[in-house]
Protein backbone atom coordinates (compact mmCIF):
# COMPACT_ATOMS: atom_id res chain seq x y z
CA UNK A 1 0.00 0.00 0.00
CA UNK A 2 1.61 3.20 -1.15
CA UNK A 3 1.44 6.41 0.81
CA UNK A 4 -0.60 7.93 -2.01
CA UNK A 5 -3.29 5.38 -1.34
CA UNK A 6 -3.27 6.07 2.39
CA UNK A 7 -3.81 9.76 1.80
CA UNK A 8 -6.44 9.22 -0.81
CA UNK A 9 -8.36 6.68 1.24
CA UNK A 10 -8.31 8.99 4.23
CA UNK A 11 -9.69 11.65 1.98
CA UNK A 12 -12.39 9.33 0.74
CA UNK A 13 -13.29 8.41 4.31
CA UNK A 14 -13.50 12.06 5.31
CA UNK A 15 -15.67 12.80 2.32
CA UNK A 16 -18.02 9.96 3.21
CA UNK A 17 -18.22 11.03 6.84
CA UNK A 18 -18.82 14.61 5.86
CA UNK A 19 -21.52 13.58 3.44
CA UNK A 20 -23.26 11.63 6.17
CA UNK A 21 -23.11 14.61 8.48
CA UNK A 22 -24.36 16.91 5.75
CA UNK A 23 -27.41 14.77 5.10
CA UNK A 24 -28.13 13.50 8.60
CA UNK A 25 -27.87 16.72 10.56
CA UNK A 26 -30.41 19.50 10.66
CA UNK A 27 -28.52 22.12 12.58
CA UNK A 28 -27.07 24.39 9.94
CA UNK A 29 -23.81 24.88 11.77
CA UNK A 30 -23.26 21.14 11.87
CA UNK A 31 -24.03 20.88 8.21
CA UNK A 32 -21.50 23.58 7.46
CA UNK A 33 -18.90 21.75 9.49
CA UNK A 34 -19.76 18.61 7.61
CA UNK A 35 -19.34 20.50 4.37
CA UNK A 36 -15.88 21.56 5.44
CA UNK A 37 -14.98 18.02 6.32
CA UNK A 38 -16.09 16.92 2.88
CA UNK A 39 -14.01 19.70 1.39
CA UNK A 40 -10.94 18.56 3.30
CA UNK A 41 -11.58 15.04 2.07
CA UNK A 42 -11.63 16.20 -1.54
CA UNK A 43 -8.44 18.16 -1.07
CA UNK A 44 -6.78 15.16 0.47
CA UNK A 45 -7.74 13.01 -2.49
CA UNK A 46 -6.45 15.65 -4.84
CA UNK A 47 -3.11 15.93 -3.07
CA UNK A 48 -2.76 12.28 -2.18
CA UNK A 49 -3.24 10.86 -5.63
CA UNK A 50 -0.76 13.30 -7.11
CA UNK A 51 2.13 11.51 -5.31
CA UNK A 52 2.61 8.72 -7.77
CA UNK A 53 6.34 8.29 -7.61
CA UNK A 54 7.20 10.64 -10.47
CA UNK A 55 8.10 13.46 -8.14
CA UNK A 56 5.97 16.08 -6.52
CA UNK A 57 3.18 17.54 -8.60
CA UNK A 58 2.65 21.14 -7.62
CA UNK A 59 -0.42 21.78 -9.69
CA UNK A 60 -2.80 20.07 -7.22
CA UNK A 61 -1.19 22.08 -4.43
CA UNK A 62 -2.16 25.26 -6.16
CA UNK A 63 -5.59 23.84 -6.87
CA UNK A 64 -6.04 22.99 -3.23
CA UNK A 65 -5.07 26.50 -2.16
CA UNK A 66 -7.64 27.86 -4.57
CA UNK A 67 -10.12 25.30 -3.29
CA UNK A 68 -9.49 26.28 0.30
CA UNK A 69 -10.02 29.95 -0.43
CA UNK A 70 -13.24 29.14 -2.22
CA UNK A 71 -14.34 26.92 0.68
CA UNK A 72 -13.50 29.67 3.17
CA UNK A 73 -15.49 32.19 1.17
CA UNK A 74 -18.45 29.81 0.84
CA UNK A 75 -18.37 28.99 4.54
CA UNK A 76 -18.20 32.66 5.43
CA UNK A 77 -21.12 33.43 3.15
CA UNK A 78 -23.07 30.55 4.61
CA UNK A 79 -22.34 31.76 8.13
CA UNK A 80 -23.46 35.27 7.26
CA UNK A 81 -26.72 33.99 5.83
CA UNK A 82 -27.16 31.54 8.67
CA UNK A 83 -26.72 34.19 11.36
CA UNK A 84 -29.10 36.52 9.61
CA UNK A 85 -31.58 33.66 9.36
CA UNK A 86 -31.15 32.83 13.02
CA UNK A 87 -31.67 36.45 13.95
CA UNK A 88 -34.82 36.72 11.85
CA UNK A 89 -36.41 33.42 12.75
CA UNK A 90 -34.71 32.12 15.87
CA UNK A 91 -34.18 28.79 14.18
CA UNK A 92 -31.02 26.85 13.64
CA UNK A 93 -32.47 24.63 10.94
CA UNK A 94 -34.45 25.16 7.78
CA UNK A 95 -38.24 25.35 8.07
CA UNK A 96 -39.37 22.31 6.11
CA UNK A 97 -36.87 20.03 7.87
CA UNK A 98 -38.25 19.07 11.23
Amino acid at each position, binding site marked *: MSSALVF*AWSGVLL*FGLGLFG*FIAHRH*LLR*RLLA*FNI*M*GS*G*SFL*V*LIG*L*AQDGRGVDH*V*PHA*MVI*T*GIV*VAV*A*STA*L*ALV*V*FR*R*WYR*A*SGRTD*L*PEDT
Partner: protein
Amino acid sequence: MIGLWSVPLLFALPLALGILSLLVTPAWRPRLIFVGLPLLAVASFDVLARLVVEGPRIYELGGWQAPLGINLVVDGLAVGMILMTTLVASLCALYARVYLRDYPPSSSFFWPLLWLLWAGMNGIWLAEDIFNLYVGLEVMGLAAVGMVALRATPQALAAAMRYLLAALLGSLAYLLGVALLYATYGTLSMAGLHEAAAPNVTTHVALALIILGLLLKTALFPLHAWLPPAHGGALTPVSALLSALVIKASFYILMRIWLVLGPEVTPIFTAQVLGVLGAGAVFYGGWMAWRQHHLKQLVAYSTVAQIGYLFLFFPLVTGTGPEAARLAWDGTLMMLVAHALAKAALFLSAGNLILAVGSTQISHLVGISRFRPMSLFSFGLAGVSLMGLPPSGGFTGKWLLLHSAILSGQWWWLIVLFLGGLLSAAYIFKVFRMSFREGPQIDRSVTPPLTLDVTALILASAAILIGLTAHLPLFWLRLGSAFGAG
Protein backbone atom coordinates in the same frame (compact mmCIF):
# COMPACT_ATOMS: atom_id res chain seq x y z
CA MET B 1 -5.46 35.28 -32.50
CA ILE B 2 -9.19 35.50 -32.17
CA GLY B 3 -10.59 38.37 -30.15
CA LEU B 4 -7.35 39.11 -28.35
CA TRP B 5 -9.12 41.82 -26.38
CA SER B 6 -12.75 40.98 -26.65
CA VAL B 7 -12.48 37.46 -25.21
CA PRO B 8 -10.88 38.43 -21.87
CA LEU B 9 -13.05 41.52 -21.70
CA LEU B 10 -16.08 39.26 -21.54
CA PHE B 11 -15.20 38.39 -17.96
CA ALA B 12 -12.73 41.15 -17.05
CA LEU B 13 -15.22 43.88 -17.80
CA PRO B 14 -18.00 42.57 -15.56
CA LEU B 15 -15.45 41.89 -12.83
CA ALA B 16 -14.20 45.45 -13.03
CA LEU B 17 -17.73 46.83 -13.08
CA GLY B 18 -18.59 44.66 -10.11
CA ILE B 19 -15.78 46.20 -8.10
CA LEU B 20 -16.56 49.70 -9.28
CA SER B 21 -20.21 49.40 -8.39
CA LEU B 22 -19.13 48.44 -4.88
CA LEU B 23 -17.07 51.60 -4.61
CA VAL B 24 -19.62 54.13 -5.84
CA THR B 25 -22.63 55.37 -3.91
CA PRO B 26 -25.88 53.39 -4.14
CA ALA B 27 -27.44 55.97 -6.45
CA TRP B 28 -24.65 55.52 -8.97
CA ARG B 29 -24.66 51.74 -8.99
CA PRO B 30 -27.46 51.30 -11.54
CA ARG B 31 -26.00 53.94 -13.82
CA LEU B 32 -22.92 51.85 -14.50
CA ILE B 33 -24.99 49.76 -16.90
CA PHE B 34 -24.88 52.57 -19.41
CA VAL B 35 -21.15 51.99 -19.65
CA GLY B 36 -21.16 48.26 -19.14
CA LEU B 37 -23.95 47.06 -21.38
CA PRO B 38 -22.74 48.68 -24.61
CA LEU B 39 -19.18 47.56 -24.01
CA LEU B 40 -20.23 44.00 -23.30
CA ALA B 41 -22.49 43.99 -26.33
CA VAL B 42 -19.62 45.15 -28.51
CA ALA B 43 -17.29 42.52 -27.09
CA SER B 44 -19.89 39.78 -27.58
CA PHE B 45 -20.60 40.72 -31.17
CA ASP B 46 -16.92 41.07 -31.90
CA VAL B 47 -16.39 37.52 -30.69
CA LEU B 48 -19.27 36.33 -32.83
CA ALA B 49 -18.02 38.14 -35.91
CA ARG B 50 -14.55 36.69 -35.52
CA LEU B 51 -15.97 33.25 -34.95
CA VAL B 52 -17.95 33.44 -38.16
CA VAL B 53 -15.07 34.85 -40.16
CA GLU B 54 -12.07 33.10 -38.65
CA GLY B 55 -13.60 29.95 -37.22
CA PRO B 56 -13.38 28.52 -33.71
CA ARG B 57 -10.16 28.99 -31.77
CA ILE B 58 -8.45 28.36 -28.45
CA TYR B 59 -7.40 31.34 -26.31
CA GLU B 60 -4.30 30.69 -24.24
CA LEU B 61 -4.47 32.75 -21.07
CA GLY B 62 -1.08 33.93 -19.90
CA GLY B 63 0.36 32.59 -23.11
CA TRP B 64 0.57 29.11 -21.55
CA GLN B 65 -0.65 26.17 -23.51
CA ALA B 66 -2.91 23.61 -21.87
CA PRO B 67 -2.40 21.50 -19.82
CA LEU B 68 0.14 23.81 -18.17
CA GLY B 69 -1.99 26.92 -18.44
CA ILE B 70 -5.67 27.56 -18.64
CA ASN B 71 -7.18 27.83 -22.08
CA LEU B 72 -10.45 29.28 -23.19
CA VAL B 73 -12.48 27.70 -25.94
CA VAL B 74 -14.07 30.11 -28.38
CA ASP B 75 -16.34 27.84 -30.40
CA GLY B 76 -19.90 28.19 -31.60
CA LEU B 77 -21.41 26.78 -28.44
CA ALA B 78 -19.51 29.13 -26.16
CA VAL B 79 -20.19 32.17 -28.29
CA GLY B 80 -23.86 31.28 -28.58
CA MET B 81 -24.17 31.10 -24.82
CA ILE B 82 -22.30 34.39 -24.45
CA LEU B 83 -24.67 36.16 -26.81
CA MET B 84 -27.66 34.66 -25.03
CA THR B 85 -26.27 35.87 -21.72
CA THR B 86 -25.59 39.34 -23.07
CA LEU B 87 -29.11 39.67 -24.41
CA VAL B 88 -30.96 38.29 -21.41
CA ALA B 89 -28.79 39.86 -18.74
CA SER B 90 -28.80 43.27 -20.45
CA LEU B 91 -32.57 43.34 -20.59
CA CYS B 92 -32.85 42.12 -17.02
CA ALA B 93 -30.44 44.88 -16.01
CA LEU B 94 -32.53 47.53 -17.76
CA TYR B 95 -35.58 46.10 -16.07
CA ALA B 96 -33.92 46.04 -12.68
CA ARG B 97 -32.83 49.65 -12.92
CA VAL B 98 -36.47 50.70 -12.95
CA TYR B 99 -37.84 47.89 -10.83
CA LEU B 100 -35.47 48.38 -7.90
CA ARG B 101 -36.37 52.03 -7.44
CA ASP B 102 -39.19 50.97 -5.18
CA TYR B 103 -36.95 48.91 -2.98
CA PRO B 104 -34.75 50.08 -0.09
CA PRO B 105 -31.19 51.19 -0.87
CA SER B 106 -29.79 47.89 0.34
CA SER B 107 -31.17 46.35 -2.84
CA SER B 108 -28.60 48.31 -4.81
CA PHE B 109 -26.17 45.54 -3.90
CA PHE B 110 -27.94 43.78 -6.74
CA TRP B 111 -25.57 45.55 -9.08
CA PRO B 112 -22.19 44.26 -7.86
CA LEU B 113 -23.78 40.83 -7.62
CA LEU B 114 -25.11 41.08 -11.16
CA TRP B 115 -21.72 41.93 -12.61
CA LEU B 116 -19.97 39.19 -10.70
CA LEU B 117 -22.65 36.73 -11.76
CA TRP B 118 -22.14 37.79 -15.33
CA ALA B 119 -18.38 37.36 -15.04
CA GLY B 120 -18.87 33.91 -13.59
CA MET B 121 -21.22 32.86 -16.37
CA ASN B 122 -19.01 34.16 -19.16
CA GLY B 123 -16.13 32.39 -17.46
CA ILE B 124 -18.06 29.15 -17.53
CA TRP B 125 -19.12 29.45 -21.17
CA LEU B 126 -15.51 30.01 -22.22
CA ALA B 127 -13.81 27.51 -19.93
CA GLU B 128 -11.81 24.68 -21.41
CA ASP B 129 -10.37 23.57 -18.08
CA ILE B 130 -12.44 21.47 -15.72
CA PHE B 131 -10.95 22.94 -12.55
CA ASN B 132 -11.43 26.43 -13.85
CA LEU B 133 -15.06 25.46 -14.34
CA TYR B 134 -15.24 24.68 -10.63
CA VAL B 135 -14.06 28.17 -9.73
CA GLY B 136 -16.42 29.67 -12.31
CA LEU B 137 -19.30 27.68 -10.85
CA GLU B 138 -18.51 29.07 -7.42
CA VAL B 139 -18.38 32.68 -8.62
CA MET B 140 -21.72 32.26 -10.33
CA GLY B 141 -23.27 30.17 -7.57
CA LEU B 142 -22.37 32.47 -4.69
CA ALA B 143 -23.47 35.53 -6.63
CA ALA B 144 -26.78 33.80 -7.30
CA VAL B 145 -27.20 32.89 -3.64
CA GLY B 146 -26.46 36.47 -2.70
CA MET B 147 -29.13 37.70 -5.09
CA VAL B 148 -31.70 35.35 -3.61
CA ALA B 149 -30.84 36.56 -0.10
CA LEU B 150 -31.02 40.20 -1.15
CA ARG B 151 -34.49 40.83 0.22
CA ALA B 152 -33.32 39.70 3.67
CA THR B 153 -36.79 38.57 4.65
CA PRO B 154 -36.89 35.30 6.59
CA GLN B 155 -38.30 33.54 3.53
CA ALA B 156 -35.55 34.90 1.30
CA LEU B 157 -32.88 33.91 3.80
CA ALA B 158 -34.26 30.39 4.12
CA ALA B 159 -34.45 30.05 0.33
CA ALA B 160 -30.90 31.36 -0.02
CA MET B 161 -29.63 29.01 2.65
CA ARG B 162 -31.26 26.03 1.00
CA TYR B 163 -29.91 27.06 -2.38
CA LEU B 164 -26.45 27.57 -0.90
CA LEU B 165 -26.38 24.14 0.70
CA ALA B 166 -27.41 22.51 -2.58
CA ALA B 167 -24.83 24.53 -4.49
CA LEU B 168 -22.05 23.71 -2.05
CA LEU B 169 -22.79 20.00 -2.07
CA GLY B 170 -22.97 20.05 -5.85
CA SER B 171 -19.65 21.85 -6.17
CA LEU B 172 -17.89 19.46 -3.86
CA ALA B 173 -19.14 16.43 -5.73
CA TYR B 174 -17.99 18.07 -8.93
CA LEU B 175 -14.61 18.91 -7.41
CA LEU B 176 -14.02 15.38 -6.25
CA GLY B 177 -14.89 14.14 -9.73
CA VAL B 178 -12.35 16.57 -11.14
CA ALA B 179 -9.78 15.33 -8.63
CA LEU B 180 -10.28 11.75 -9.78
CA LEU B 181 -10.07 12.71 -13.43
CA TYR B 182 -6.89 14.65 -12.80
CA ALA B 183 -5.38 11.76 -10.90
CA THR B 184 -6.20 9.45 -13.80
CA TYR B 185 -5.25 11.56 -16.78
CA GLY B 186 -2.85 14.15 -15.40
CA THR B 187 -4.59 16.97 -17.19
CA LEU B 188 -7.46 19.36 -16.56
CA SER B 189 -7.86 20.42 -20.15
CA MET B 190 -10.90 19.18 -22.01
CA ALA B 191 -8.88 18.61 -25.16
CA GLY B 192 -6.44 16.47 -23.21
CA LEU B 193 -9.22 14.52 -21.55
CA HIS B 194 -10.88 13.96 -24.91
CA GLU B 195 -7.66 12.38 -26.20
CA ALA B 196 -6.99 10.26 -23.15
CA ALA B 197 -10.40 9.28 -21.79
CA ALA B 198 -10.85 5.53 -21.45
CA PRO B 199 -13.54 3.44 -19.81
CA ASN B 200 -12.35 2.42 -16.36
CA VAL B 201 -13.74 2.41 -12.85
CA THR B 202 -12.13 5.65 -11.80
CA THR B 203 -13.46 7.52 -14.79
CA HIS B 204 -16.94 6.15 -14.27
CA VAL B 205 -17.00 7.08 -10.60
CA ALA B 206 -15.67 10.53 -11.48
CA LEU B 207 -18.35 10.90 -14.13
CA ALA B 208 -21.01 9.83 -11.64
CA LEU B 209 -19.82 12.42 -9.12
CA ILE B 210 -19.72 15.14 -11.74
CA ILE B 211 -23.17 14.23 -12.98
CA LEU B 212 -24.66 14.19 -9.49
CA GLY B 213 -23.06 17.46 -8.56
CA LEU B 214 -24.24 19.18 -11.69
CA LEU B 215 -27.74 17.69 -11.49
CA LEU B 216 -28.05 19.18 -8.04
CA LYS B 217 -27.01 22.56 -9.36
CA THR B 218 -29.27 22.28 -12.39
CA ALA B 219 -32.17 21.26 -10.11
CA LEU B 220 -33.13 18.22 -12.14
CA PHE B 221 -35.98 16.26 -10.61
CA PRO B 222 -35.76 14.80 -7.95
CA LEU B 223 -32.99 17.16 -6.82
CA HIS B 224 -35.04 20.25 -7.54
CA ALA B 225 -36.41 21.08 -4.09
CA TRP B 226 -34.26 24.17 -3.63
CA LEU B 227 -35.35 25.80 -6.89
CA PRO B 228 -38.96 26.91 -6.45
CA PRO B 229 -38.46 28.88 -3.23
CA ALA B 230 -35.25 30.44 -4.53
CA HIS B 231 -36.52 31.37 -8.00
CA GLY B 232 -40.11 32.02 -7.00
CA GLY B 233 -39.30 34.12 -3.98
CA ALA B 234 -36.52 36.35 -5.27
CA LEU B 235 -36.82 39.86 -6.69
CA THR B 236 -38.28 39.65 -10.19
CA PRO B 237 -35.14 40.47 -12.20
CA VAL B 238 -33.23 38.01 -10.03
CA SER B 239 -35.75 35.26 -10.71
CA ALA B 240 -35.43 35.93 -14.41
CA LEU B 241 -31.64 35.77 -14.37
CA LEU B 242 -31.52 32.63 -12.27
CA SER B 243 -34.12 30.71 -14.21
CA ALA B 244 -33.01 31.84 -17.62
CA LEU B 245 -29.25 31.64 -17.30
CA VAL B 246 -27.81 30.29 -14.08
CA ILE B 247 -29.25 26.79 -14.18
CA LYS B 248 -28.18 26.55 -17.82
CA ALA B 249 -24.55 26.90 -16.85
CA SER B 250 -24.38 23.64 -14.92
CA PHE B 251 -26.28 21.87 -17.69
CA TYR B 252 -23.83 23.31 -20.18
CA ILE B 253 -20.88 21.93 -18.23
CA LEU B 254 -22.49 18.51 -18.09
CA MET B 255 -23.15 18.59 -21.82
CA ARG B 256 -19.56 19.57 -22.56
CA ILE B 257 -18.05 16.95 -20.28
CA TRP B 258 -20.36 14.27 -21.66
CA LEU B 259 -19.19 14.99 -25.18
CA VAL B 260 -15.56 15.39 -24.13
CA LEU B 261 -15.44 11.97 -22.50
CA GLY B 262 -16.91 10.54 -25.67
CA PRO B 263 -19.17 7.59 -26.44
CA GLU B 264 -16.70 5.00 -25.19
CA VAL B 265 -16.83 6.33 -21.67
CA THR B 266 -20.40 7.55 -21.37
CA PRO B 267 -22.66 4.55 -20.80
CA ILE B 268 -25.96 4.28 -22.64
CA PHE B 269 -27.54 3.17 -19.41
CA THR B 270 -26.63 6.42 -17.69
CA ALA B 271 -27.89 8.35 -20.67
CA GLN B 272 -31.24 6.62 -20.44
CA VAL B 273 -31.41 7.26 -16.70
CA LEU B 274 -30.77 10.94 -17.30
CA GLY B 275 -33.52 10.92 -19.89
CA VAL B 276 -35.92 9.23 -17.48
CA LEU B 277 -35.14 11.81 -14.80
CA GLY B 278 -35.76 14.48 -17.40
CA ALA B 279 -39.12 12.90 -18.17
CA GLY B 280 -39.90 12.83 -14.45
CA ALA B 281 -39.03 16.52 -14.26
CA VAL B 282 -41.32 17.33 -17.18
CA PHE B 283 -44.27 15.55 -15.58
CA TYR B 284 -43.69 16.46 -11.97
CA GLY B 285 -42.74 20.07 -12.67
CA GLY B 286 -45.69 20.56 -15.00
CA TRP B 287 -48.10 19.03 -12.53
CA MET B 288 -46.77 21.10 -9.64
CA ALA B 289 -46.80 24.27 -11.74
CA TRP B 290 -50.44 23.68 -12.50
CA ARG B 291 -51.21 23.32 -8.79
CA GLN B 292 -49.60 26.59 -7.68
CA HIS B 293 -51.60 29.55 -6.46
CA HIS B 294 -48.82 32.09 -6.66
CA LEU B 295 -47.85 33.36 -10.06
CA LYS B 296 -44.09 33.30 -9.60
CA GLN B 297 -44.19 29.88 -7.98
CA LEU B 298 -46.00 28.64 -11.05
CA VAL B 299 -43.30 30.06 -13.27
CA ALA B 300 -40.60 28.59 -11.04
CA TYR B 301 -42.10 25.11 -11.24
CA SER B 302 -42.36 25.58 -14.97
CA THR B 303 -38.57 25.89 -14.93
CA VAL B 304 -38.35 22.57 -13.08
CA ALA B 305 -40.39 21.05 -15.90
CA GLN B 306 -38.53 22.68 -18.75
CA ILE B 307 -35.15 21.55 -17.45
CA GLY B 308 -36.40 18.03 -18.09
CA TYR B 309 -36.52 18.56 -21.86
CA LEU B 310 -32.85 19.46 -21.92
CA PHE B 311 -31.92 16.12 -20.40
CA LEU B 312 -33.40 14.25 -23.35
CA PHE B 313 -30.14 15.30 -24.96
CA PHE B 314 -28.23 12.46 -23.32
CA PRO B 315 -30.27 9.47 -24.49
CA LEU B 316 -30.71 10.99 -27.93
CA VAL B 317 -27.03 11.70 -28.47
CA THR B 318 -25.53 8.55 -26.97
CA GLY B 319 -25.31 5.47 -29.10
CA THR B 320 -27.50 6.87 -31.85
CA GLY B 321 -26.52 7.60 -35.42
CA PRO B 322 -24.76 10.80 -36.45
CA GLU B 323 -27.93 12.31 -37.90
CA ALA B 324 -30.02 11.67 -34.79
CA ALA B 325 -27.19 12.97 -32.60
CA ARG B 326 -26.92 16.14 -34.64
CA LEU B 327 -30.65 16.70 -34.39
CA ALA B 328 -30.49 16.10 -30.64
CA TRP B 329 -27.72 18.66 -30.32
CA ASP B 330 -29.62 21.19 -32.40
CA GLY B 331 -32.88 20.52 -30.62
CA THR B 332 -31.44 20.71 -27.12
CA LEU B 333 -29.63 23.94 -27.80
CA MET B 334 -32.71 25.42 -29.41
CA MET B 335 -34.71 24.41 -26.35
CA LEU B 336 -32.07 25.86 -24.09
CA VAL B 337 -31.88 29.23 -25.79
CA ALA B 338 -35.63 29.44 -26.28
CA HIS B 339 -36.22 28.62 -22.65
CA ALA B 340 -33.72 31.23 -21.56
CA LEU B 341 -35.48 33.91 -23.55
CA ALA B 342 -39.01 32.77 -22.81
CA LYS B 343 -38.48 32.16 -19.12
CA ALA B 344 -36.85 35.53 -18.60
CA ALA B 345 -39.78 37.11 -20.42
CA LEU B 346 -42.25 35.07 -18.39
CA PHE B 347 -40.74 36.08 -15.06
CA LEU B 348 -40.47 39.73 -16.05
CA SER B 349 -44.04 39.89 -17.30
CA ALA B 350 -45.24 37.95 -14.26
CA GLY B 351 -43.48 40.60 -12.19
CA ASN B 352 -45.32 43.28 -14.14
CA LEU B 353 -48.66 41.60 -13.57
CA ILE B 354 -47.90 41.30 -9.87
CA LEU B 355 -46.97 44.97 -9.75
CA ALA B 356 -50.18 45.82 -11.56
CA VAL B 357 -52.55 43.99 -9.25
CA GLY B 358 -50.45 44.28 -6.13
CA SER B 359 -50.74 40.61 -5.34
CA THR B 360 -48.90 37.45 -6.18
CA GLN B 361 -52.07 35.36 -6.19
CA ILE B 362 -53.15 34.04 -9.57
CA SER B 363 -56.77 34.41 -8.55
CA HIS B 364 -56.28 38.17 -8.24
CA LEU B 365 -55.57 38.47 -11.93
CA VAL B 366 -59.27 38.47 -12.77
CA GLY B 367 -59.93 40.65 -15.78
CA ILE B 368 -56.39 41.91 -16.03
CA SER B 369 -56.36 41.36 -19.77
CA ARG B 370 -58.46 44.46 -20.14
CA PHE B 371 -56.23 46.69 -18.11
CA ARG B 372 -52.70 45.43 -18.68
CA PRO B 373 -52.87 43.87 -22.14
CA MET B 374 -49.22 44.46 -22.90
CA SER B 375 -47.91 42.65 -19.83
CA LEU B 376 -50.24 39.80 -20.57
CA PHE B 377 -49.22 39.76 -24.22
CA SER B 378 -45.56 39.22 -23.31
CA PHE B 379 -46.64 36.52 -20.89
CA GLY B 380 -48.58 34.91 -23.73
CA LEU B 381 -45.78 35.06 -26.28
CA ALA B 382 -43.36 33.54 -23.80
CA GLY B 383 -46.00 30.95 -22.93
CA VAL B 384 -46.31 29.96 -26.58
CA SER B 385 -42.64 29.09 -26.66
CA LEU B 386 -42.81 27.17 -23.38
CA MET B 387 -45.78 25.18 -24.62
CA GLY B 388 -43.82 24.32 -27.72
CA LEU B 389 -46.42 25.75 -30.06
CA PRO B 390 -45.43 27.34 -33.34
CA PRO B 391 -44.05 29.71 -34.30
CA SER B 392 -41.49 29.82 -31.52
CA GLY B 393 -38.08 28.64 -30.44
CA GLY B 394 -39.71 26.12 -28.15
CA PHE B 395 -41.55 24.62 -31.09
CA THR B 396 -38.48 24.40 -33.29
CA GLY B 397 -36.57 22.74 -30.47
CA LYS B 398 -39.38 20.30 -29.89
CA TRP B 399 -39.58 19.53 -33.58
CA LEU B 400 -35.87 18.72 -33.69
CA LEU B 401 -36.07 16.55 -30.59
CA LEU B 402 -39.09 14.69 -31.98
CA HIS B 403 -37.24 14.16 -35.21
CA SER B 404 -34.23 12.84 -33.38
CA ALA B 405 -36.33 10.54 -31.19
CA ILE B 406 -38.09 9.02 -34.19
CA LEU B 407 -34.88 8.66 -36.14
CA SER B 408 -33.13 6.88 -33.29
CA GLY B 409 -36.14 4.65 -32.71
CA GLN B 410 -36.66 5.83 -29.11
CA TRP B 411 -40.38 6.37 -29.40
CA TRP B 412 -40.87 6.58 -25.62
CA TRP B 413 -39.48 10.11 -25.58
CA LEU B 414 -42.30 11.12 -27.92
CA ILE B 415 -44.73 10.56 -25.09
CA VAL B 416 -42.72 12.87 -22.86
CA LEU B 417 -42.73 15.61 -25.46
CA PHE B 418 -46.43 15.07 -26.14
CA LEU B 419 -47.66 15.12 -22.55
CA GLY B 420 -45.15 17.74 -21.50
CA GLY B 421 -46.53 20.16 -24.06
CA LEU B 422 -50.11 19.59 -22.91
CA LEU B 423 -49.13 20.01 -19.25
CA SER B 424 -47.42 23.29 -19.93
CA ALA B 425 -50.47 24.43 -21.87
CA ALA B 426 -52.53 23.57 -18.81
CA TYR B 427 -50.57 25.80 -16.47
CA ILE B 428 -50.05 28.65 -18.89
CA PHE B 429 -53.72 28.79 -19.78
CA LYS B 430 -54.59 28.64 -16.11
CA VAL B 431 -53.24 32.17 -15.89
CA PHE B 432 -55.00 33.22 -19.06
CA ARG B 433 -58.32 31.86 -17.97
CA MET B 434 -58.15 34.06 -14.93
CA SER B 435 -57.06 37.11 -16.84
CA PHE B 436 -59.93 36.83 -19.33
CA ARG B 437 -62.56 36.42 -16.68
CA GLU B 438 -64.68 39.52 -16.35
CA GLY B 439 -64.75 40.58 -12.74
CA PRO B 440 -65.76 43.81 -11.05
CA GLN B 441 -65.23 46.38 -13.74
CA ILE B 442 -63.06 48.84 -11.89
CA ASP B 443 -59.52 49.34 -13.02
CA ARG B 444 -57.63 49.09 -9.77
CA SER B 445 -54.46 48.04 -11.47
CA VAL B 446 -51.32 50.10 -11.23
CA THR B 447 -49.56 50.95 -14.46
CA PRO B 448 -45.97 49.75 -14.28
CA PRO B 449 -43.34 51.92 -15.97
CA LEU B 450 -43.08 51.39 -19.70
CA THR B 451 -39.51 50.06 -19.50
CA LEU B 452 -40.72 47.06 -17.55
CA ASP B 453 -43.23 46.12 -20.20
CA VAL B 454 -40.91 46.79 -23.10
CA THR B 455 -38.02 44.67 -21.80
CA ALA B 456 -40.36 41.75 -21.20
CA LEU B 457 -41.84 42.16 -24.66
CA ILE B 458 -38.45 42.22 -26.35
CA LEU B 459 -37.43 39.00 -24.65
CA ALA B 460 -40.72 37.32 -25.51
CA SER B 461 -40.49 38.40 -29.14
CA ALA B 462 -36.95 37.09 -29.28
CA ALA B 463 -38.20 33.71 -28.07
CA ILE B 464 -40.67 33.69 -30.95
CA LEU B 465 -38.31 35.03 -33.61
CA ILE B 466 -35.51 32.62 -32.84
CA GLY B 467 -37.83 29.80 -33.81
CA LEU B 468 -38.42 31.30 -37.24
CA THR B 469 -34.78 31.99 -37.94
CA ALA B 470 -33.36 28.98 -36.14
CA HIS B 471 -31.28 28.03 -39.16
CA LEU B 472 -28.60 30.65 -38.57
CA PRO B 473 -28.08 30.41 -34.79
CA LEU B 474 -28.01 26.63 -35.04
CA PHE B 475 -25.36 26.87 -37.73
CA TRP B 476 -23.24 29.11 -35.53
CA LEU B 477 -23.73 26.89 -32.52
CA ARG B 478 -22.40 23.92 -34.49
CA LEU B 479 -19.17 25.70 -35.39
CA GLY B 480 -16.28 23.80 -33.86
CA SER B 481 -18.47 21.06 -32.42
CA ALA B 482 -18.42 17.37 -33.26
CA PHE B 483 -21.62 17.84 -35.27
CA GLY B 484 -20.27 19.20 -38.49
CA ALA B 485 -20.30 22.65 -40.05
CA GLY B 486 -16.95 23.35 -38.35
